[in-house]
């Protein structure tokens, strides 16, 4: 009886893993097909639509990076009479507020909101909501303080709002400090797979495109109607993505709206960031999975994709459980109808292929970016995937514990930015 239960559990886990495998294959093929089409028919996209735009920049102890982003804001090509930049100094203890004030004095479209110790430090969602109260643009965009966008990024993003069905937009994130070390290189590969292939495919296939919390934005009216960012959610971006879709709007991904980010540069920082993402995603999975299935605003394909997206951070745990279940099945050889060989094959196949940015997605992404040498690092993604197993398992157990005990435990662990990207920007500008 015990063996039969193990077998059924194993088959279920394998089916889930195969579902993700197929999903990523479809994404990769869709992007490859689309890239060829694009080459054959380059189309001119109108940039006439120019709404008023408010850019929100939440910043907490970001003195090393805030200056370069504000400088970039002054260099944006978007008409300044239609632009408002709001810096939310979230109770910083360093020079962030002073630097922002200097820019505010020099440029009338830059505004600084200072939050006190009592108000601030409650996470990004809380800071963004504080900024939203002062925003008067038709469109609200958000940038993290360590980001460095293209000069023409605003027009590229906001042009999508000409379509009344578009409620939110998302641009592409490119890792700036990639050559720094192994961690930044692997994060960059994950980003290439995630943005060049995953997001692009979901957009082209009209599935659930994800708002990533930065390098993107919303119609202000819709955002206010939805009640702004939810401070109780650790993945406030994923939470809003699903609220937008459930309200009958869509998120549009703009591949050529690119922005540099300063990636985490140590395994410790990687753990903190991914732990927050994993726990936040799992929160959203509990909150939206049923609502998604019941919704009459989404297509069947969107529901399936939404469920897979919401539960993506359970995958490392599923792989771990598959090993735990599969190895006894393989060793004990009790099974009559499930060949142990196939059990081992199925687990190892998925384990090797990985989860977060599966190898073929990254491979195709780097190929489309014209970076064939970066592909040589792809085997090392196995380590990032293995590292995600304890991260996601801990996130799940902590979330389960907080649900059982009724303790919230949603402490926002902010990613520290060293400002290492500055030297790379100088190099790139001098290129």
């Amino acid at each position, binding site marked *: 009886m015990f063996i039969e239960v193990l077998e059924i559990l194993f088959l279920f886990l394998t089916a889930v893993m195969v579902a993700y495998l197929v999903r990523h294959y479809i994404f990769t093929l869709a992007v490859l097909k689309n890239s060829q089409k694009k080459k054959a028919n380059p189309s001119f996209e109108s940039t006439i639509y120019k709404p008023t735009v408010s850019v929100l920049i939440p910043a907490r102890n970001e003195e090393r990076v805030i200056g370069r982003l504000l400088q970039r804001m002054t260099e944006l090509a978007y008409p300044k009479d239609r632009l408002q930049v709001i810096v939310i100094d979230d109770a910083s203890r360093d020079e962030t507020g002073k630097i922002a004030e200097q820019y505010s004095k020099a440029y009338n479209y830059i505004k600084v909101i200072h939050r006190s110790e009592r108000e601030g430090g409650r996470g990004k969602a809380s800071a963004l909501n504080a900024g939203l109260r002062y925003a008067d643009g038709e469109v609200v965009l958000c940038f993290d303080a360590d980001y460095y966008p293209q000069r023409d990024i605003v027009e590229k993003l906001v042009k999508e709002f000409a379509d009344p069905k578009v409620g939110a937009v998302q641009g592409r994130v490119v890792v700036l400090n990639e*050559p720094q070390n192994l961690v930044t290189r692997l994060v960059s590969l994950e980003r290439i797979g995630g943005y060049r292939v995953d997001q692009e495919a979901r957009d082209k296939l009209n599935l659930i495109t994800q708002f990533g919390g930065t390098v993107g934005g919303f119609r202000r009216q819709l955002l206010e109607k939805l009640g702004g960012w939810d401070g109780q959610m650790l993945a406030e971006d994923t939470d809003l993505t699903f609220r937008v879709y459930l309200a009958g709007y869509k998120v549009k991904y703009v591949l050529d709206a690119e*922005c540099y980010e300063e990636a985490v540069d140590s395994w410790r920082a990687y753990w903190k960031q991914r732990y927050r993402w994993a726990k936040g995603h799992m929160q959203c999975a509990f909150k939206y999975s049923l609502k998604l299935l019941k919704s009459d605003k989404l297509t069947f394909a969107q529901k399936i994709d939404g469920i897979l997206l919401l539960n993506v951070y359970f995958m490392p745990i599923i792989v771990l459980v598959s090993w735990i279940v599969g190895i006894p099945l393989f060793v004990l050889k009790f099974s009559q109808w499930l060949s142990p060989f196939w059990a081992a094959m199925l687990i190892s196949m998925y384990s090797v292929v990985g989860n977060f940015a599966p190898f073929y997605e990254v491979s195709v992404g780097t190929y489309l970016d*014209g970076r064939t*040498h970066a592909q040589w690092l792809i085997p090392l993604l196995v380590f990032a995937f293995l590292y995600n197993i304890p991260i996601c398992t801990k996130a799940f157990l902590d979330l389960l514990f907080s649900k059982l005990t009724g303790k919230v435990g949603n402490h926002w662990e902010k990613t520290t930015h060293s400002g290492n990207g500055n030297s790379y920007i100088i190099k790139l500008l001098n290129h």
Partner: protein
Amino acid sequence: MIPSPNLLSMITVFFGILFFLILTFLPSIVELKKPKDPGPRIIVEYDHIYLSDLENRKSEDGELKANVSILGEIVAILTFLPDLES
């Protein structure tokens, strides 16, 4: 001393796995030691066409169309001229 079949198979498996790992990670190690990848590419920026530019373009197009219509009239007159001669 001839190793037992079990020991032989264990040694084979050990070296097999070692060979597989070296083969898998060798390109990565080479790229890490001597990176040939140019690193983060320069994010593409290009000048955007503003409404005023488009209006200018439209007026240029209008001028071009006017020129084409004038040219058409000249051609029509020229084709009519031989008829006059006849």
